[in-house]
Structure formats: structure tokens, C-alpha cells
């Protein structure tokens, strides 16, 4: 009989993971801080063309429309300085199977699980990824379990996560729901061990390779539609895979657009707090994931995360909850597009950033997500109000996460705030030293320069 105590299961983590991902991560390790990231990415055996074939032929996903938001662009331009106000485009990823870009990530994982003969897949996610995995598993004829952090200790569920549970069940998955806490990972490990299923993690090279097609398509579509490359691509950032995959795809298309990360500012709220769980109106795309995963990617559910956003990020901006809700409503009112709020984080940022770029520049928001009961601007604001959150029009900069949601009194007040990227890069360097306990050698310095999109001199100057 297996010892299923918390300590015993956690101590079996490495062997459970090795079997559940079918990949030996040890062979990419240097024994010091550095590891062979590109070697790990190449180990999938699928290049961009192969991934495109899997997505297009096997799962019929991708090739989503790139839509110019002419009215939103005009509105932004109406209060931008003379000659400013870039054209805003959005990649309508909600048109994908299961309603989000996450299906690109799921498709390659499910293809791999099927090829390797796993009877089913498990994913630990409270987000759109669950539905994506469920949809692909349904198509592949694999069993599927989705493990969610869903309720607080009073049994109150976050409406957005409840909706995702419904969708996963509708697509044939078994949904296991838990209260707040990082020990979700413990139950996840237990179920992997019990079932022998594949870990359809968001953070394997398969998942990230799946997102590369999104960046590649953006470059291709801009060239086809506009005869030129985009100048800026804005990515909603949480665990980092969206930005990493998109940026890698852009690079594979030889596109050098500036890559900007955008997260909803939830500073002050603790992600593992039972009492604060239902005081936040965004369950993803926020700084509570975005900042820690950027500065230490290897906190994920695999030994080495393939999502390493600081390798590709040029800037990181934050927007407030009220600004994203406002933008979501504007998108419906002015463009006829009703989409889920979290996916519009990057759009809220782009609406502000467009005003800082000349009129002839192209800014691409690289996703939308589906909306429905629970995960809708109306549902989320209603839930917030019922939890005592003060919702009113005012200056978004006065918003206090967990206490207020401030809708801009005027759309010109939507403002992307620059995060200190140098500070984030420094944090990553310090975390790499702290978590490994190693003194960096020359190879580590070169590795950390790649990890932070800087150079060896910067790394040496910022060592702990």
C-alpha cells in the first residue's frame, strides 16, 4: 500500500513526473545554474511545421482571424497627441476549439500523449486550459481529468472557475475541485500516480511549441493584410507561456516586433489566501502569477518550465481591474465583440500604448477568449459587488485590489503602467542563485544573460 501522506507523495514528485511527462529533464541540466533550454525545446521532435500540421490537420485549430479594431483605434486616437494613435488589431483566438488560444498548447500535448500510448491526460488548471485539454482529449479519444482550485473554505466558488468546470464536463472531462491552496499539486501527483495518465502541463516544451504558431500567424497575417510587420505585440501574461510561445513564433517568422507583457494589477492580494480568494475579479492574467512566474519560471508543475517570458519580453505593463472591465465593455459597444474579460487584459494595455505610437504603426493584441455565464464582465462585477467590493467611476490609479474596482471616469484615463523590468531581471538572477544554491560560472552568466534578455555585463553587475 502506497503511503499517500503529503510528505510521502511530495518526496515521490520527481519519479511521478518523469513517468507522467515521458521526458527525462535531467539530461538538459548542467549541474550548475544553467540548463539547455533550446535542447529541451528541440526534444519535442516537432518543429514549427510539424506543430502546424498537428494543429491544422488533427485538431482543426489555429488560423484565427486578425481583426482591425477600427472604432477602438479611432477612440484612442481622439485623445492621443497629434499624429499619434496606432492601429489596433486583435487575434480572435476565441474562435478556436474550446474558445481560447490555450487549445494550441493542449493540441501538441494530447497528440504526444496519444502517440506515447497514455490512456488519458490530467491537467491542473482553473483556467481555459482545462477546456482546451478536454476538447483535444475528446477528439483524440483519451480520458481526461481536470483538477481545479475552485472554492474558498465556505464553499463559495469563483464564478469564472465554475464556468470552466461546466465547460470541461460538457466536453467529457472529469473535474476534481479543491479549496484554495498550493497543495492542489499534491492531489495532482496522487492522481497521476493512481491513473498513469499523461501530465498535460501548461509548461512542457509541447505546450509552448504549440503557442509558437500563434506568433508565426500574426507575422504572416500582418504581411498578407498590411504588407508589413507589426510594430508591437501585446501579450496577457500569467504563467508566461502565452508570451514565450508567441515571441518564439514571431522570431521564427523573422519578425522583430516589440513584445510587451500585460497583467492585471492584483498587488496586495495573496494567491494562496482563503479569505482573499473571492475578492479578486481575475483568476488569471494577473500579477499574482505574472510576476513570480517571470522571475522564477521553475515554480511550475514540471522540473523545468518551457515558459520563460523574461527571455523574450521587452516591456512589462500592468493595468487595473476596472480598466480591463471598461475595455471589455468598450469592445462590445464599439466593435460588436463580446469576449471574456481576462483575455482583454492585453487589449486594455494596447488601448493605452497605441496612444504613444504614431498613427501608421501596428499594434497587435494576440488573443481574445470566449465569454459566458460566470466569466463575463457583468457576472464578475456582480460577484465583486456581492462580496463588498466598492465599484465606482473614478481615477483607476486609486483602485485597491480586494477593496475597490475603479472604472475610469473617461476612457482617456485607461493607462498602462510600466513595471520596472530591470528589477524583474535582477530578481530572476537572484532567484536562480538562491534556488540552486550555486555560485555562477561563466556558462551560468551566459545562460542568465539569455534568461533575462540582457548581456553578461548586466548579469555580473546584478548578481546577489
Amino acid at each position, binding site marked *: 500500500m502506497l503511503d499517500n501522506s*503529503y510528505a510521502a507523495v511530495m518526496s515521490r514528485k520527481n519519479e511521478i513526473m518523469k513517468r507522467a511527462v515521458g521526458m527525462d529533464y535531467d539530461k538538459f541540466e548542467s549541474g550548475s545554474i544553467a540548463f539547455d533550454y533550446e535542447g529541451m525545446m528541440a526534444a519535442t521532435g516537432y518543429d514549427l511545421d510539424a506543430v502546424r500540421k498537428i494543429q491544422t490537420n488533427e485538431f482543426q485549430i489555429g488560423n484565427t482571424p486578425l481583426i482591425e479594431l477600427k472604432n477602438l483605434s479611432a477612440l484612442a486616437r481622439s485623445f492621443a497627441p497629434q499624429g499619434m494613435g496606432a492601429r489596433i488589431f486583435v487575434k480572435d483566438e476565441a474562435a478556436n476549439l474550446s474558445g481560447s488560444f490555450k487549445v494550441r498548447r493542449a493540441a501538441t500535448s494530447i497528440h504526444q500523449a496519444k502517440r506515447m500510448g497514455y490512456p488519458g491526460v490530467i491537467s491542473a488548471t482553473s483556467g481555459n486550459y482545462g477546456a482546451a485539454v478536454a476538447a483535444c482529449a475528446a477528439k483524440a479519444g483519451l480520458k481526461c481529468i481536470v483538477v481545479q482550485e475552485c472554492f474558498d473554505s465556505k464553499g463559495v466558488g469563483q464564478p469564472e472557475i465554475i464556468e470552466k468546470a*461546466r465547460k470541461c464536463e460538457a466536453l467529457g472531462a*472529469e473535474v476534481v475541485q479543491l479549496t484554495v491552496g498550493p497543495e492542489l499539486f499534491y492531489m495532482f501527483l496522487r492522481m497521476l500516480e493512481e491513473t498513469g495518465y499523461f501530465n498535460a502541463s501548461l509548461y512542457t516544451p509541447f505546450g509552448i511549441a504549440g503557442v509558437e504558431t500563434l506568433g508565426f500567424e500574426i507575422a504572416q497575417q500582418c504581411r498578407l493584410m498590411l504588407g508589413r510587420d507589426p510594430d508591437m505585440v501585446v501579450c496577457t501574461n500569467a504563467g508566461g507561456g502565452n508570451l514565450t510561445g508567441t515571441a518564439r513564433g514571431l522570431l521564427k517568422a523573422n519578425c522583430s516586433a516589440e513584445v510587451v507583457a500585460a497583467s492585471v494589477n492584483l498587488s496586495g492580494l495573496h494567491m494562496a489566501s482563503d479569505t*482573499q480568494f473571492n475578492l479578486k475579479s481575475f483568476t488569471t492574467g494577473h500579477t499574482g502569477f505574472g510576476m513570480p512566474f517571470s522571475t522564477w519560471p521553475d515554480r511550475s508543475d514540471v522540473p523545468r518550465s518551457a515558459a520563460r517570458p523574461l527571455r523574450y519580453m521587452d516591456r512589462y505593463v500592468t493595468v487595473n481591474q476596472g480598466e480591463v472591465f471598461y475595455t471589455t*465593455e468598450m469592445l462590445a459597444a464599439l466593435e460588436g465583440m463580446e469576449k471574456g474579460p481576462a483575455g482583454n487584459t492585453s487589449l486594455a494595455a494596447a488601448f493605452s500604448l497605441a496612444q504613444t505610437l504614431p498613427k501608421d504603426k501596428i499594434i497587435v493584441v494576440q488573443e481574445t477568449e470566449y465569454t459566458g*455565464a460566470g466569466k463575463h464582465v457583468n*457576472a464578475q462585477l456582480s460577484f465583486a459587488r456581492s462580496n463588498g467590493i466598492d465599484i465606482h467611476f473614478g481615477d483607476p490609479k486609486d483602485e485597491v485590489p480586494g477593496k475597490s474596482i475603479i472604472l475610469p471616469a473617461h476612457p482617456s484615463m485607461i493607462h498602462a503602467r510600466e513595471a520596472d523590468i530591470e528589477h524583474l531581471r535582477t530578481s530572476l538572477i537572484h532567484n536562480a542563485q538562491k534556488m540552486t544554491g550555486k555560485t555562477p560560472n561563466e556558462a551560468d552568466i551566459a545562460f542568465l544573460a539569455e534568461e533575462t534578455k540582457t548581456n553578461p555585463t548586466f548579469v555580473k553587475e546584478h548578481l546577489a
Partner: protein
Amino acid sequence: MANKNDWVQIHIDVLKPEERATNIPEDTRHVPLEMWVKGHLIDETAEIGDLVKVRTKTGREVEGTLCAVNPSFKHNFGDYIPELDTIDETVKTILFGGETHA
């Protein structure tokens, strides 16, 4: 009251407060880690609150306390939010003028 093969939901206390991870916030450490699973009832009959076994969609057998029979989703679009109408009016007035959409 539930009968064999009925679709039900069970509840399990996975970790008691004292068994939880140490690196979590104080408020979370004071409550158990709870789990809910759905499946077809394996027992012949059961009442809410009984310890039962279910077979889940993937065929797993899980034991827990029966908490719902024929569980369903009740989430919705919430109450009317007047601010959303104000946003619509504001942005349409700026872009198209006040009269167009009055």
C-alpha cells in the same frame, strides 16, 4: 436519497489543517484542504451525509461523503450592473456624437 448508479457529488477532507503545507498564509492554514468529486453511486442506496463510493467519468473509484444528488450548475450573468450602460453611452457619444445613439 440516492440509488445505485445515480449521478452524485461527494466531498472529501483531503488534508486536515495540521497536515497542510507550512508555506501558506495563516488564514488558509486554519482550514482543511477540501475536495469535491462527481460520479455514479456504487452503493445500493445512500442519504446525504453518508460515506459512499462513486465511480467517476474516467472510471476511478473514490470514497467520500455524499453531498449532492444530480448536481447541476447554477452560475449566471449576475445582477444588473448600471455602470456598463454608462460606459456604452460614454464611448458611443465620444466616437459618434451624442444624438446618434440617444
